[in-house]
């Protein structure tokens, strides 16, 4: 609502992070989404998380596909390069950018249409390659931008604004990610900033592909009671399985933190995520258990949220490729070009 009433996404206080930046420095252009769109809440959580993490804005890269959700990278961290790719193909662009410069932090934002319909193949293959990036799906069960058709994550029985009823089973990004071998799989809800911010921080720090599927109601096309992606439904039925609290490397380990039911997982970059099991003995390092638990909750019509699965031992795309530490894009030409003498020698074989 650029022209009407929408305020800048977040009027942060003037508190400064480790880099001396205020939350303002992590904001972006004014959102043009519908007032009340879940996506805007996620944008706010991203701003908060990046600020808390103290990332240098220009060392981040924001990517997206096409859709309402994919517009949002314009609305945060305006001092980072951003790229709106084509519909469903952001993962490949992210893979290429990450290949060229492994030292930047990649944050991709996508929609359920963008990732689970047209983009399903790229989405799975980026996970398989374990490209280091945080990938957020702003999941509303519909194609917002093209006015409310069902996406592949729409639940059976949900009803479109035009009256049609979806009869196909949903593709669940979280189950798909587990099957595709993703190394960081989380789910959250756009309205739960307390859970979302630490998840985003953890995801940005994960040295591999981190997926966060965020249920993000579309107020315009999918906020009726029947939808399991409506506000009403989400608020009522989502189950926070694990509470994530992130301790950024720049800060000291927080004193007085309850050790009781906290489980610590060390991430590749040395930072830690602390997992608070809100129920039973949920173990986010067991892929099978995660699959069963999530699937079982889905069958029961509920969402399990939190950090659902994490694996820290696996090498990312560059680790697998054994790429040099410097960004390939920054290597000087003379280390890349073998030169005339070598050419002469090389050609001997062909004479």
């Amino acid at each position, binding site marked *: 609502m650029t022209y009407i009433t929408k305020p800048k996404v977040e009027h942060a206080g003037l508190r400064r992070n480790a880099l001396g930046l205020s939350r303002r420095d992590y904001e972006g252009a004014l959102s043009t989404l519908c007032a009340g769109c879940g996506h805007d809440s996620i944008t706010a959580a991203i701003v908060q998380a990046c600020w808390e993490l103290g990332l240098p804005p*220009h060392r981040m*890269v924001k990517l997206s596909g096409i859709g309402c959700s994919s517009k949002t990278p314009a609305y945060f961290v305006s001092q980072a390069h951003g790229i709106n790719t084509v519909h469903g193909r952001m*993962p490949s662009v992210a893979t*290429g950018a990450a*290949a060229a410069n492994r030292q930047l932090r990649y944050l991709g934002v996508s929609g359920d249409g963008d990732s689970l319909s047209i983009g399903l193949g790229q989405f799975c293959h980026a996970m398989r390659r374990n490209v280091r990036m945080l990938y957020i799906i702003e999941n509303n069960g519909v194609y917002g931008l093209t006015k409310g058709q069902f996406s592949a994550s729409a639940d059976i029985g949900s009803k479109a604004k035009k009256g049609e009823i979806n009869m196909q089973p949903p593709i669940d990004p979280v189950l798909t990610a587990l099957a595709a071998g993703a190394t960081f799989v989380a789910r959250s809800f756009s309205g739960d900033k307390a859970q979302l911010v630490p998840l985003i921080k953890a995801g940005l720090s994960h040295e591999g592909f981190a997926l966060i599927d965020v249920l993000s109601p579309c107020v315009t096309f999918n906020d009726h009671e029947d939808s399991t992606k409506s506000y009403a439904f989400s608020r009522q039925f989502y189950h926070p399985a694990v509470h994530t609290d992130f301790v950024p490397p720049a800060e000291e380990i927080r004193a007085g933190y309850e050790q009781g039911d906290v489980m610590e997982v060390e991430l590749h970059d040395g930072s830690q995520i602390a997992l608070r099991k809100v129920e039973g003995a949920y173990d986010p390092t067991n892929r099978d258990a995660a699959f069963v638990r999530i699937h079982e909750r889905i069958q029961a019509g509920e969402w399990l949220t939190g950090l659902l699965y994490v694996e820290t031992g696996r090498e990312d795309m560059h680790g697998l490729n054994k790429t040099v530490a410097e960004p390939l*894009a920054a290597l000087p030409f003379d280390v*890349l*070009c073998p030169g005339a003498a070598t050419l002469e020698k090389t050609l001997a074989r*062909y004479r």
Partner: protein
Amino acid sequence: MSGRKTPESVNDFTLKLANVNGTGSASANGLLMKSFFRMGIPVAGKNYFPSNIQGLPTWYEIRVSREGYRARSGQVDLMVAMNAQTYAQDLAEVSPGGYLLYDSTWPRSHALSRDDVTVLGAPFAQLCNEAFDGVRTRILMKNIVYVGALAALLDIDMAVIEQLAQDIFGKRPGLAEANMKAIRIGWDYATANFDCPLPFRVEAMAATGGMVMMDGNTTAGLGCVYAGATVGAWYPITPSTSLMDAYRSFCARFRADPETRERRYCVVQAEDELAAIGMVLGASWAGARAFTPTSGPGISLMAEFIGYGYFTEIPAVIFDVQRVGPSTGLPTRTQQGDILLAAYASHGDTRHPVLFPADPTESFEMAVQAFDLAERLQTPVFVLSDLDIGMNDWMCRAPSWDDAYVPDRGKVLTAAELERIEKFRRYADIDGDAIPWRSLPGVHPKGAYFTRGSGHSEAAGYTEDAGEYERLMDRLKRKFATAATLMPAPVLHRADKKAALGIVSIGSCDDAVMEARDRLKAEGIRSDYLRIRAFPFNDDVQAFLDEHERIFIIEQNRDAQLRTLLINECSVDGRRLESILHYDGLPMAAGPLVAAVRERLRKGAAA
């Protein structure tokens, strides 16, 4: 060169070897080719293989040409018919007065014979069975035995062959000896049983100095290494696959840290071509030189992203090693069927610079130029090779390198420059050449901007404004005019006297056209010849069209795609541009061109 051979011709004949694929004939054929080459004799090889892995017919054609003609000759002086199933067809293909050599272990029916062809039988399988053990060895050595027989029949220098076998197999003990043994067996058999040498034979020359025998995918892959490309993304597809194989293996040699083995390159095998071009655009956007090799179907799949690259102004280098279309077509045959697609790929008003190498040497050079142009122009650039160039072994000028070369990375703002400027305007035409300045991620906060395939203002903001859109499109059009000034110029071959006839051609047609011109000249038909090397065309092309009354456009596709580009982009009466088309999937030969030109001229001017 048609009709019966003169009894005593030297270094001027075509040899064709018919085999079954998957039986190891490739190395035998290579050995033969290389022997001629090492004897200093110009030679050209064409491989006709099936789209299958094992068990189907495959042919290899070697043309030995004193004059240095590298095109397919269109005739067969000696057929080596090792595939019983294609024997009849192979026999039928021999030119009158020619010879056929076959494996007489299993006798052929007499129904299959021709009066005008001399048939020579040698019991290759039987000879092998006697000399070698093991099925695998026997199958492989049978090929080498026919090389020995051919050495005797064609008078190939045995010392050269021996040295070659040493070079190729020397590292694997026993293999060199076995091969030499097989060669000797064949040589002995032929010497003892046939009237050696044949009336056409070879004699050492000194015509291959400074030359190499290479295929264009290897040189292009090497070119990518030399150009400093660090990211390659691809999805395997014949006939482009060996380009990435070459890049990867050269990188393994030249780009791995000698101590840590860490790699200064990253090759990503993408899940498909859409992803491959996405990766290339992502990598280029982030500042690496990145490329993808593919073929026709891949370009079709990349179309959406290519338009995105055009509109957002991201460099990319795309090698299209063309094969026969449409659709899956004939994946192991050659064609120039993607010219129009490459030039105008994607929906909306789009156009792309395209380079057209004519041989492996130029494939190397144009690989390097492609990166310079893509970064200078900030747009996807195509290198349009084809199966003939990419996968056949060509005798060609050795690629050379100038250590003074500095890559043209185009207009990229450094951190210091960004620090200085007031506001970065990504899409502003600062210099009047319609090429804007770009910034790379991670360099400086002031360089940050948002790239999008939707409408964007000079400052890279989102816009749906009609005027801003029109200005953007007009600048992109002007940028293409700038491109025309940067692309490699066409090569002009003038007739010795003023000629009214002009020939325009492209890419791998070159050898056939050059040979045809020689032959036409011998008939008194002179022509000027312009070989297009790039799109957009520079002014030389318009000048050539203006200068000639009658112009033949020679190309390898059905729909006259080069002609379409010429009449669309130049100012010319299209009715003056007559097409001579060849599109059956085999490399072009000079003969049909000569006939076509002669015939057209006889018929008089175009309507």
